[in-house]
């Protein structure tokens, strides 16, 4: 079966625009190297239809950039992304537009991703109307249906975002995304800013929607326990690269990469009373100047001389289990 999303060798580099002096220098043949952030460095990944793939990692690991590229908000600097087997460039314009619409994004902060001057019915209905998912006459009913599905009372459709609580605002964002009838949602830290009791409600909503609408998810989060709960498969990223990928049960039972193991150890657990933290040393390096070889080697308790020289390949180490570490050899 064709995977829903197929990402091959995708990289994303950010650099600042040249200043005038630099441009003149370049024209004169003098080239000064500009700082480049490798937000994504040769990432390959597939997401099956109806699958929930969790992407975890700390700040600067590239998980949000990956989500934004798949959602079509950012362009990749290199590599290609196939949507149900085709790249956007291969599709006729109409089909490409539809392919973009089929992937919707839910953001972390609902208060900055909702227009504060628009009422809920405008927020939820505008895109649906524009893309012909409903008619002007049927709009009110259509919006009410989306709101109900996201767990909101349609009677509140004439209110503004600030009149809602954080959890309800997140539901508005979900209703807006669902209104264009996507078959895939990219959730970027979508429950991170919510209170614990509200977080459970929103996670349950995501699981219901998956079942009812047969949605595919890319679920991006720094919170391992949330990702563990909702995902079928988990991808661990560090400084722009995938370091490990496995089905959820396998990853949490047999983490292979030293970074994944460290990450699993560091999460505070409710049940294991740990009086002594033995944290991994050091800071997350700057993506402007990532370490050579394996990016994790300066912090890795098991690093060997080779790790500083050679980038480890992401290789198969078990059924559907991939890891990028020289210790796998």
């Amino acid at each position: 079966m064709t995977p829903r999303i197929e990402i091959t060798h995708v990289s994303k580099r950010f650099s600042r625009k040249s200043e005038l002096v630099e441009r003149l220098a370049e024209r004169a043949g003098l080239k000064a190297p500009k700082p480049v952030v490798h937000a994504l460095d040769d990432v390959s990944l597939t997401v099956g239809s109806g699958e929930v793939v969790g992407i975890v990692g700390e700040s600067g690991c590239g998980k949000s950039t990956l989500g934004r590229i798949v959602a079509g908000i950012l362009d990749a600097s290199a590599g290609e992304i196939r949507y149900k087997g085709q790249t956007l460039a291969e599709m006729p314009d109409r089909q490409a537009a539809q392919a973009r619409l089929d992937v919707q994004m839910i953001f972390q902060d609902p208060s900055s991703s909702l227009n504060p001057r628009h009422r809920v019915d405008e927020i939820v209905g505008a895109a649906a109307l524009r893309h012909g998912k409903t008619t002007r006459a049927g709009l009110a009913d259509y919006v009410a249906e989306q709101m109900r599905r996201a767990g909101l009372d349609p009677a509140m459709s004439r209110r503004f975002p600030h009149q809602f609580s954080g959890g309800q605002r997140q539901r508005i964002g979900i209703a807006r995304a669902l209104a264009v009838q996507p078959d895939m949602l990219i959730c970027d830290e979508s429950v991170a800013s919510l209170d614990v009791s509200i977080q459970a409600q929103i996670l349950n909503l995501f699981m219901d929607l998956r079942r009812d609408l047969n949605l595919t998810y890319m679920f991006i989060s720094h919170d391992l326990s949330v990702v563990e709960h909702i995902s079928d498969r988990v991808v661990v990223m560090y400084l722009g690269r995938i370091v490990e990928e496995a089905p959820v049960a396998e990853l949490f039972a047999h983490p292979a990469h030293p970074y994944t193991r460290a990450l699993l150890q560091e999460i505070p657990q409710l049940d294991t009373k740990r009086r002594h933290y033995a944290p991994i040393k050091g800071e997350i390096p700057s993506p402007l100047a990532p370490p050579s070889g394996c990016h994790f080697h300066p912090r890795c308790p098991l690093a060997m001389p080779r790790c500083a020289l050679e980038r480890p390949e992401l290789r198969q180490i078990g059924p559907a289990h991939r890891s990028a570490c020289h210790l796998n050899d």
Partner: protein
Amino acid sequence: MTAPMLEIRNLRTEFATDAGRVTVIDEVSFTLNRGQVLGLVGESGSGKSVTGFSIMGLIDPPGQVSGGQILFKGEDLRTLPEPRMRALRGNRIAMIFQDPAMTLNPVLRIDTQMIETILAHEKVSKTVARDRARDALGMVGIPSPEERLRAYPHQFSGGMRQRVAIAIALLHRPDLIIADEPTTALDVTIQAQILAVVQRLARDHGTGLIWITHDLSVIAGLADRVAVMYAGRIVEHGDVDTVIRTPRHPYTHGLIGSLPSRNPRGQHLKQITGTTPAIAALPQGCAFRPRCARATEACLAAPPVTQTEGRLLRCFHPVTEGEAA
């Protein structure tokens, strides 16, 4: 002497609003001994931060601490004149904020800020103060502290800035540190490093710690006792292991039950219905009543406070041991 280092009795803080006076926290009582860590847990608007600010004497108008006692080493901080309070604050009692930018001045070098903090409370030479500052940076795990003293806050990463903020709080070896969500904005591996630092501090120096957070898992590994707040009141308070293993207040019970780690993978999470009530319009009686599955007519009255086996509970219908999560 066996008197606790800090004893809070029936603390109440109110805010004047257009709609009248709103009680933000009420009947908050707890004690803290030397070297003890108390976790103060609650969701947004539960009053956990206001409790911390009230103890520090940092509630400004329109807010006001309007009732109760804050006994620090036997002295009521509420009755202290401001100059005496100022001598205590930053010296014997220190606070760490969620956002280290609240502590650090962006245009001053770290050494300037740290030396200033020392000289504010002690008469020592600048050289001595500088050495103390360097040692404090070393203690919180900042590599090459001598060089880092000359840096500006923006030259540090988020985790490092929080360490600097903690180092500043430590400068006078305070008896009490109030930490308000200090690791919430940090990455997991960095959070673990910070937790290791404060844990050592409480153990080795006998510093008392009030750790304010929404994250019960952090408390489970760090605190000795936990107080759970809901709508401005402590609803359950006791030994951290006991409360987490057998929560008895329906709110604590629901909160712990809704955590993904307490639910089978991929299954519906047990959830608390509804949302936290607005503090200005609390339901009559028990504030948790509209969200509580156990609520009855009785809950329309203020729930009684019971104290059994070192656990405080504010509920008519506590969860019994048999039905624990």
